[in-house]
């Protein structure tokens, strides 16, 4: 292959365009790559004066670089924009090197231009830049905290959401700076998880507390995923953090609710077993004495006594079961009342008299103070339940000291005070004693469902009244209930 053929072959396959022009700027060679770039065939180009005569906007430089090459200079231009073809579709940029071509005598006979189309590279760069910008915008508006780390595990990017959350700058967080915001109790676990995952290049999840700009530590769930270059090289990690504090708190509430329910079930079972125990013993003893003794020698009085006591245990069980059913009814929402016009004084006196017997057994005196009458519109059954619960508690926790039950007429309302001189209530638990299943004392010492005060509050609420407690440990407890004489809602219902 002679050099002429070789040169033409090289020019035919080359991506770089080659143009040769003589001292008058007349084009003498126009390579195939030039044809493609400028969409001008060789026949149209050769013989024309460059560049204007080619009808080409050959760049902003005009013929000046060509003349410099002809003057012996090597001219290098980058990013020369061009538009080609009648339709201007062949627009782009090129870089070019113009060199002088000398004859054997050393005289400059022509200029040679070697052009490379840089449009594609520039477009790729532009696209990469736009992709990057789009990523930044998306990252910054995303509601999650985003981070990126280089292959050396040092963080190189945090989105605006992250920076707003921590209230720190990118420079603060850069590298390992972000770890300063991790709660010290979670720090080691967080860093260990992170580094272990990094070493194995695997996806990881870790929960830790991260300091927010306001100084509060928030639980975040951090998920990290390894990134890979197109050629398979490890490129680091990208990760996102979500604030899961609210979810965590809900979980705690839920666990507490479940444990309260479990405790309640165990207490309810205990409460049911107590009357069952007495009932069982009574019935067993009846059967035993009937079996053991000849019919004529059965102690009739003892049998009656045992059976009556068994029946009273059945009553106790029935009451318990009704109370348990009441919980689900009350839990469903506002209590439905059946109000009627009644005298609160005679109602409360009836309860105090009925409970007096039990109170006397507990060596506790019940003292009742009230005006002659106090009329209003209330639900008789529910008010009975309310007063029974309060007075029952007072005798139960009253440490054998007198209990005062006081009724007073107030402007448009009735005020009931139940005051004992017993063990009192720890101030720390006073806030929650009206909650469901709450008890101020250990179930180990005092039985009961832990529902009395909760039920009392539901009843008072339904009557649009208020209930409050004043107490100190060892100094007794005073419960005060204020019931409107006729709550608007109730008056309408009873009308």
């Amino acid at each position, binding site marked *: 292959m002679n050099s002429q053929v070789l040169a033409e072959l090289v020019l035919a396959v080359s991506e770089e365009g080659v143009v040769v022009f003589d001292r008058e700027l007349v084009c003498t060679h126009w390579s195939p790559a030039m044809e493609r770039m400028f969409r001008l065939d060789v026949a149209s180009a050769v013989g024309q004066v460059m560049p204007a005569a080619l009808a080409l906007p050959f760049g902003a430089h005009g013929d000046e670089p060509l003349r410099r090459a002809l003057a012996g200079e090597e001219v290098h231009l980058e990013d020369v924009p061009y538009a080609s073809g009648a339709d201007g579709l062949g627009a782009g940029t090129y870089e070019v090197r113009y060199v002088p071509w000398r004859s054997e005598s050393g005289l400059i006979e022509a200029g040679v231009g070697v052009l490379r189309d840089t449009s594609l590279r520039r477009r790729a760069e532009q696209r990469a830049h736009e992709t990057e910008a789009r990523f930044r915008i998306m990252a910054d508006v995303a509601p999650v905290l985003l981070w990126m780390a280089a292959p050396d595990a040092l963080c190189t990017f945090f989105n605006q959401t992250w920076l707003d959350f921590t209230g720190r700058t990118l420079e603060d967080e850069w590298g390992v700076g972000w770890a300063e915001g991790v709660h010290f109790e979670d720090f080691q676990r967080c860093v260990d998880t992170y580094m272990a995952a990094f070493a194995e290049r695997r996806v990881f999840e870790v929960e830790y507390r991260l300091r927010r700009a306001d100084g509060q530590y928030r639980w975040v769930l951090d998920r990290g995923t390894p990134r890979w270059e197109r050629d398979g090289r490890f490129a680091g990690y990208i990760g996102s953090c979500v604030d899961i504090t609210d979810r965590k708190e809900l979980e705690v509430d839920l666990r507490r609710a479940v444990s309260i329910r479990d405790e309640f079930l*165990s207490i309810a*079972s*205990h409460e049911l*077993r*107590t*009357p*069952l*125990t*007495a*009932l*069982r*013993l*009574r019935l*067993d*003893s009846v059967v*035993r*004495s009937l079996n053991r003794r000849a019919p004529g020698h059965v102690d009739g009085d*003892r049998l009656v*006594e*045992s059976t009556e*006591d068994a029946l*009273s*245990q059945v009553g*106790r069980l029935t009451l318990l079961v009704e109370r348990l059913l009441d919980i689900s009814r009350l839990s469903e929402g506002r209590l439905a009342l059946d109000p009627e016009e009644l005298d609160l004084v005679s109602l409360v006196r009836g309860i105090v008299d009925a409970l007096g017997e039990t109170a006397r*057994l507990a060596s506790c005196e019940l003292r009742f103070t009230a005006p002659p009458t106090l009329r209003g519109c209330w639900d008789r059954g529910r008010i009975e339940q309310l007063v029974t619960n309060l007075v029952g508690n007072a005798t139960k926790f009253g440490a054998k000291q007198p209990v005062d039950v006081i009724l007073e007429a107030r402007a448009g309302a009735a005020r009931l005070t139940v005051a004992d001189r017993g063990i009192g209530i720890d101030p720390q638990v006073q806030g929650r004693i009206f909650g469901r299943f709450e008890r101020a004392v250990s*179930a*180990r*010492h*005092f*039985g009961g469902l832990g529902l009395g005060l909760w039920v009392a509050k539901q009843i008072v609420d339904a009557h649009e009244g208020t209930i409050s407690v004043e107490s100190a440990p060892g100094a007794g407890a005073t419960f005060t209930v204020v019931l409107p004489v006729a709550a608007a809602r109730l008056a309408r219902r009873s009308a």
Partner: protein
Amino acid sequence: MIATPDQAASCEGVLVVEDDADILRALVQVLEDEGYTVRAAENGSAALAALRAPGARLPCVILLDLMMPVMDGWTFRAEQLRDPVLAEIPVVVLTADGNAAARSAVLEVAGALRKPVELLTLLAAIQPFLG
């Protein structure tokens, strides 16, 4: 833990420690019907007072509830074991607690019964100590 012959000779009946008045009354009556001498205490503290009363004869067995106000059964048992005069009196626990057996192991008692208890089971548990 079995009563020594000395104690067995000098002891008398059952001490029932139970805070629920209905159960206490029922227990006292059914045990009296069996011919035993029965004393009652409404909590651990009252039981200790009864046991330490001057001139009182010690019971042959104590039937002990666990969940009680003032002094619960666990505390009573600990106090009893600390008192050399009372420590050897056998105790049978009667509780509504679901883990009666596990509880009794901790308390080192002679037996544990779960409420509600059958009368015959109750009698079988205390009879060995009553001669």
